[in-house]
């Protein structure tokens, strides 16, 4: 359809006007009649027995409606929170999933663990009263260091989990890998840490629970990337109410980055409390709570070895990782360092044998789960770092070493050593283009010029791959996932030709209202501004799995496309009737049905009108123009590309400046290049943040030292150079749109590119992330 608003056009985002003019409808903008406010009493200790809770004084304070504790939860038989993925250990045993009550009643396991919910007339009153709740703690030793969490003498997080081990998992072929190493000409080795990050969505988490006695139903307004999953968990496991009596609404949302996938204690307590107090209860996290209770990401300690032959071919890869789960298993925590990590270790390369083992361990820290990229940044960091170490050992140009080992464009579908089957791609082409954009050849000159200015300039590459569009339900089901990962979309035409799309994908900054409108406009010709995208309300949308893992376009978008196709087929019957020809004579193009070889035609809008005013209508055909499609992908999608980072290091201070960024990504077909570029920029910013600035730091007792922006460094505009990105497009062969997904790419690609550049600038083997000025200075002076 119209090039201006169709697929491939950089349409300006239709949602932005309301966002930038302050008219978004975020959770805290919502207030319900009679609403009370909740404030949580949280543990100040990382590990303690709760010897007693005295809420007498607090209950009598001004405005206090009720103080609720874990004992009340138990009395009401409200279940604990769950982890939805059972990752089996090497020995076949299940993931240890210890109890996770929404309010702790006997033991607290991290600083921020919720103990009581105070409900009062105002937020300030609730907070005042929360301070008056007296909790008696018997403080116990805390296990903070992940590398020692499974060792003898470690403080035990859950009495029923031996050695704090949630699972001890492996993937790949150990024997084949050992054999590969045995014949290696060279083995590169590295120990590295993937630093723990806080998700830092601009809008903090929030929830309003509401109970209607008249029909015994609940409504939960919550910041959720997947409202139906929240409903499912709160119904089936927590037992708040059956699904048909629970509506979950997730309106405009200021970012998620994964942290709003999970079902947390907070909204669980709030929805339960609403019925107990007979009033809507609102809770909005403040920033300190967000740092302490939003699930963190990454936090791996890894040893990696790469075996190479004489010619620099990768023979084998051996990876051993300890992954920090924090104090409880969050909703999808278990799959992140396993099926979203180990399965990606093939990278873009033909490595002959791979073996990876992961020990997932509990510590007395905030739970760790998916953050933008989830597992794939960790895998990419391991691969792309060890390749640079090997290149340095063998004095081979890192771009050349990558190229020598890349899977060739004619090798697809490519079966990896670690379960996945890559569907399509052209890795050498993306590498070539990225190097061109980066003027890789001219680097030596830039390095010399920087040297004259007293700066050490370095260049680093990262050729990443990710598995997006998660996921084929049968595959994830076989791997222990408790849910399917399809998506649902409904397109409802209105009699006058406008369209409303109801979709399970959830937009929290990604621009879905624009992108999905382009998909509909392209096929049906409905004017762009007459398409409404509705998401985030289980009372309206078809059952959907939500947004994460760069799946919105690759799964939700395809469901939408399939629903559109159903409408076109129905319309064909109506058009044939109207134009008095056989269906097979009708062709549909650019929103118009026409009779092949004639000038007889009718528009989709006219056909739609006929469907709602069926005066002259095919016999036996239902009126109405509405279709729903559920789409379960046949495979993951595999975006890939190469990013090139250049840094300049000030040798006197160790300060690092990213001075140049060039990238070529392959996201398959692109619906809106501007939005895609924005997603890539955001991802790169996220990744540079992790590489240079961000990191959660706990002290030995388990206090989070980086619980505010005074100490947790977020990247800002002046941390970035102008980012130059381009794409190649190898369409995804197994979905109707040919799309792959782009939301996480930058965050996956960037960290190793930055660290490779720094290592190159300093001519050292490794610098840990975040590569702060002091760390870099230490590395230079080691």
């Amino acid at each position: 359809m119209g090039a201006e608003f169709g697929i491939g056009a950089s349409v300006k985002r239709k949602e932005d006007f309301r966002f930038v003019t302050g008219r978004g409808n975020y959770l805290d903008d919502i207030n319900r009649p009679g609403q009370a406010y909740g404030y949580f009493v949280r543990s100040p200790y990382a590990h303690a027995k709760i010897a007693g809770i005295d809420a007498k004084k607090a209950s009598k304070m001004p405005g206090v409606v009720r103080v609720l504790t874990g004992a009340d939860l138990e009395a009401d038989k409200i279940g604990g929170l769950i982890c939805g993925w059972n990752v089996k250990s090497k020995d076949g045993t299940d993931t240890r999933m210890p109890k996770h009550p929404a309010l702790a009643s006997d033991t607290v396991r991290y600083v921020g663990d919720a103990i009581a919910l105070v409900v009062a007339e105002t937020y300030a009153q609730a907070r005042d009263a929360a301070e008056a709740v007296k909790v008696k703690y018997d403080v116990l030793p805390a296990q903070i260091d992940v590398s020692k969490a499974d060792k003898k003498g470690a403080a035990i997080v859950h009495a029923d989990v031996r050695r704090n081990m949630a699972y001890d998992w492996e993937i790949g072929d150990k024997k084949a890998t050992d054999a590969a190493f045995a014949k290696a000409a060279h083995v590169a080795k590295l120990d590295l840490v993937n630093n723990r990050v806080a998700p830092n969505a601009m809008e903090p988490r929030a929830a309003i629970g509401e109970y209607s006695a008249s029909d015994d139903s609940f409504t939960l307004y919550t910041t959720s990337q997947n409202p139906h999953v929240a409903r499912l968990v709160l119904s089936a496991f927590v037992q708040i109410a059956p699904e048909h009596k629970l509506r979950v609404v997730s309106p405009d949302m200021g970012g998620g980055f994964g942290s709003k996938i999970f079902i947390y204690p907070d909204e669980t307590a709030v929805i339960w409390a609403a019925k107990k107090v007979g009033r809507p209860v609102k809770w909005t996290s403040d920033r300190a709570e967000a740092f302490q209770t939003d699930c963190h990401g990454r936090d791996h300690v890894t040893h990696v070895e790469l075996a190479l032959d004489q010619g620099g071919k990768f023979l084998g890869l051996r990876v051993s990782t300890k992954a920090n789960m924090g104090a409880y298993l969050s909703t999808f925590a278990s799959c992140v360092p396993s099926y979203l990590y180990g399965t990606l270790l093939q990278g873009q390369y033909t490595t002959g044998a791979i073996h990876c083992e992961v020990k997932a361990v509990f510590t007395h820290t905030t739970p760790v789960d998916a953050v933008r990229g989830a597992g794939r940044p960790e895998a990419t960091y391991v691969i792309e770092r060890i390749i640079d170490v090997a290149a340095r050992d063998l004095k081979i140009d890192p771009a050349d070493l990558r190229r020598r080992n890349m899977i060739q464009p004619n090798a697809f579908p490519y079966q990896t050593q670690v379960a996945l089957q890559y569907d399509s791609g052209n890795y050498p082409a993306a590498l070539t283009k990225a190097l061109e954009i980066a003027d890789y050849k001219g680097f030596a000159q830039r390095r010399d010029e920087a040297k004259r200015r007293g700066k050490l300039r370095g260049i680093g590459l990262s050729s990443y791959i990710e598995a997006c569009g998660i996921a084929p339900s049968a595959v994830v089901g076989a791997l222990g996932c408790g849910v399917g990962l399809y998506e649902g979309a409904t397109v409802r035409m209105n009699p006058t030709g406008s369209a409303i799309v109801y979709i399970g994908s959830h937009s929290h900054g990604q621009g879905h209202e624009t992108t999905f409108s382009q998909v509909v406009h392209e096929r049906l010709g409905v004017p762009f501004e007459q398409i409404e995208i509705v998401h985030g309300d289980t009372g309206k949308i078809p059952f959907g799995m939500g947004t994460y893992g760069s799946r919105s376009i690759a799964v939700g978008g395809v469901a939408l496309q399939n629903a559109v196709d159903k409408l076109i087929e129905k319309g064909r019957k109506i058009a044939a009737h109207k134009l008095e020809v056989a269906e097979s004579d009708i062709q549909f193009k650019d929103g118009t049905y026409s009779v092949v070889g004639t000038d007889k035609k009718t528009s989709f809008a006219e056909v739609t009108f006929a469907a709602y005013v069926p005066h002259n209508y095919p016999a036996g055909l239902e009126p109405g123009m509405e279709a729903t499609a559920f789409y379960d992908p046949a495979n993951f999608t595999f975006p890939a590309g190469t990013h090139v980072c250049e840094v300049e290091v000030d040798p006197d201070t160790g300060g690092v400046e990213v001075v140049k960024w060039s990238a070529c990504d392959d996201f398959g077909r692109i619906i809106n290049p501007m939005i895609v570029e924005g997603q890539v920029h955001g991802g790169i910013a996220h990744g540079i943040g992790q590489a240079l600035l961000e990191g959660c730091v706990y002290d030995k007792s388990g206090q989070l030292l980086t619980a505010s922006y005074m100490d947790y460094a977020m990247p800002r505009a002046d941390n970035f150079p102008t980012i130059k990105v381009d794409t190649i497009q190898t369409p995804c062969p197994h979905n109707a749109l040919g799309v792959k997904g782009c939301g996480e790419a930058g965050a996956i690609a960037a960290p190793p590119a930055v660290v490779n550049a720094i290592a190159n600038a300093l001519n050292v083997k490794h610098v840990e992330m975040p590569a702060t000025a002091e760390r870099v200075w230490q590395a230079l002076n080691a």
Partner: protein
Amino acid sequence: MYEFDYHKAKNVKDAVAIAKKQDEAKYLAGGMSLVPPMKLRLAKPGNLIDLNEVGELAGIKVDGKTVAVGAMTRHESVAESKDVKKAIPALAKLAGGIGDPQVRHRGTIGGSLANSDPAACYPTAVLGLGATIETDQRKIAADDFFTGLFETALKEGELITKVVFPVPDKACYIKFPNPASRFSIVGVFVSKKGNEVRCVVTGAGPCVFRVKGIEDALKKDFSPKAIENYKHPASGLNSDIHGSAEYRAHLITVLAKRAVAGAE
């Protein structure tokens, strides 16, 4: 935030009188340092005395020898002042490098000095130029003003009215910012006026301090080379997640050299 009583002061006398009368009273200037800990419930003043409408406290006066800055003058006004830029460019630059535009439009010099944050910028200029802090009661020499971590020579209820900076021959402030807060991990201010040289460090100790070793070397030869081999002892310096004492000690020399080179 806990409850407190709010008082709007009309003039200096009024402000001081209210402070005398009320318990747990705090002056409210830009609120940039005072209000955040109140919001986090880490500070609980019973009374706030708002200085924002005390006109006599704001403004800049420059004559041939001094730059006088009223306590309620915003960082942005100092940064943008043509007169300050001409008389003490280092002072204008320092003010222009504090926080972000929002902070600079609210924050004041009086608030910054009274607060004496261990990593604050303004105190380096005050000590580094040998300024005089004037209060409702007296004049305090910079060398006597900063006494410790968030501690100054100010007495209970004493109000800073202005700060008088002597104009140096040249001066410069170099800040190595903490990537999170963008306060200084270490900041160094150097100045030269006739034979007098001052070198002041922020971020590395409980409050700003002078570095005699550097000052002595620069007195002989005001050049980066003169302090090239100066090694500041790490012992006693701040050590935290943003920088070890050794690193901070190292930065003192690096930044002092740059400040000398950049002095104007």
